[in-house]
């Protein structure tokens, strides 16, 4: 599959920050999930997904994000979205993601959020 997706990540304490760039489709969603599972998932209580450089997410990408939310919720962890483009924010609202995940304006706010 053709993809322009890239990501990088860093761990701060029990928080994993994943910053994405490009279209979150099947490939992008898989890479985010792989990045999460490559860490010691039981130790991670919060995943911060920084979408500053991502402008579009398709429904396959969203299905990966829902899985990530479910996985985190099983271990009382949570997913926080940050730097959301307005159209992605609306997409996540319609798809019901904010019932189980949070959003903040910036990574710093996400790091500080309870």
């Amino acid at each position, binding site marked *: 599959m053709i993809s322009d997706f890239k990501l990088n990540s860093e761990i701060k304490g029990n928080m994993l920050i994943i910053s994405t760039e490009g279209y979150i489709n*099947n490939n992008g969603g898989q890479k985010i999930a792989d990045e999460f599972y490559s860490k010691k998932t039981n130790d991670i209580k919060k995943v911060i997904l920084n979408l500053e450089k991502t402008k579009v997410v398709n429904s396959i990408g969203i299905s990966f994000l829902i899985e990530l939310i479910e996985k985190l919720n099983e271990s009382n962890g949570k997913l926080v979205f940050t730097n959301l483009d307005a159209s992605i924010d609306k*997409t996540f609202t319609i798809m019901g993601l904010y019932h189980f995940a949070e959003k903040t304006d910036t990574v710093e706010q996400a790091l500080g959020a309870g």
Partner: protein
Amino acid sequence: MASAELNLLVDKLNLQVKSFQEGFEVLSNSKNLTDLARNFSHILRGNLLSINVNIFYKEQSEKDWRALYLHNKEAIKFTYELKPENILKINFLTDNNYKVAITLPMINSSYFGLLIGQKIDKKEYSSFDRVSIQIFLQLLDNAYQAYLNNKKEKELIFSLNNRVLQLNSLIDTGIELSALDKTESLLELALERAVVLTNASAGCITVYENDNIIKYLSFPPGIEENDLKESTNKLNTEFSLLGKTYKFILIEKESRAGVIEFDDTDKILLEAFARQLESAIENEHLHKEALEKENIKKELSVASDIQKKIIPEKLPEIDGYDLAGINIPSKEVGGDYYDCIELNDGRYALIMADVAGKGVPAALLVSTLNASLKSYLDLQIPLDKLAQKINSIIYNASPSNKFITFFIAVLNPKNGELDIINAGHNPALLLRNNGVLQKINAGGVALGMFNMGLPFVGEKITLNSADRLLLFTDGIPEAMNENEEEYSDERLEEFIEKYQFPKSSELIDALVHDVKSHTRECPQSDDITALYLIKH
């Protein structure tokens, strides 16, 4: 059966019933398949008092067993004891570590496999245990169906939400497209939305004009058109508008299981985006056209105002002469100009000019000419020098494609002497009182064309009583009818020779009438301007 034994059995059964109820509740709340297996393993182990209970899963009969929950990692070596069939198989084994091997077919053609070790007390599994196993397996079957229903419900909600998202995006995109005013942005937005909402992995729009590619865009950016064209999994649509053809290609519809075929909904969505784009481009074009028309209208209005201020409302009355003039601007507002300026020495300057071009630039140049003439005429410098000065002013004030054809005749009303310069203008027509028609060509090149000091050669003539002089612009001889036939210099000359009205204004009116009778319904393409002088 003894009463004590019976009571024990009843207690045991009551305990089992309670365990079933609690077990079902626990299993029903399982978060996923692994969770379900782990919970079932605990329930079974607790009720049978087994050393270990290992649970496997097979998606389809031809696939391998996958361990869902293992008490003992070695158990995976014994999956050969699990034989998937269409009916429940419970085998009680005697010759290995595992005493019970169960294969349970499920509703969706998958299988659960269980390998149960020996009991803690190392006794054989009793008849009661065997019945309990059957009941617990029924419990697992029910819980699995509940799990599947729950999963289907989630998928259905996801699918419904996705449909709402598609509909919402379609509406939003229509609104956003209508707010954009650059074709490139329109193409980018429509393509991006079409790719994302159909779950395509990529797409492109190619715009053709006369079979040549004039625009190409891809999403994600940077993908070659050939890479997309070569894909075997694609969806196309196209439309043509204003001489251009817009072709969409989307490729590789994504799913969690890999690339799948685009469906009818994807086709409908793509065509809807294409229609929205078509409508937005058409609206953008109409908007630009309306703006251009509005700008032209404003420019013409400004030009018309300038021209109205320069063209004299009333000509001076010259003792012993009758003078009349007319200017009928064309729809596009030309650059014609005529005037009669009284000089401070009692002479009169009759002026006729025509600026190449139309609109505000032409009107401004006429304005410059008018101002220059008014400044220099009273200085009483020779006409050839005056023409050179004004030529220099016009040359410096105008772009290279703008110039003015110019005719000036300074009349001394006392003796009828006319001092004339014709700078590239139509020759004036002088009808002598004996019926002889003369053309006055004297002069040089049009004003503003060159600034090389080229001479303007003047001419002097004297008007006699009943002589008549017509100055005019090319709007008269070049007035065209529907057959593209000009009114012509010949017809004008014939008219001047033929009609000798006593009043100048009557001649002017009759001339305009004659020109209009030639052009009929054809719109006037240039200004009609004339100045007619009769010496009494």
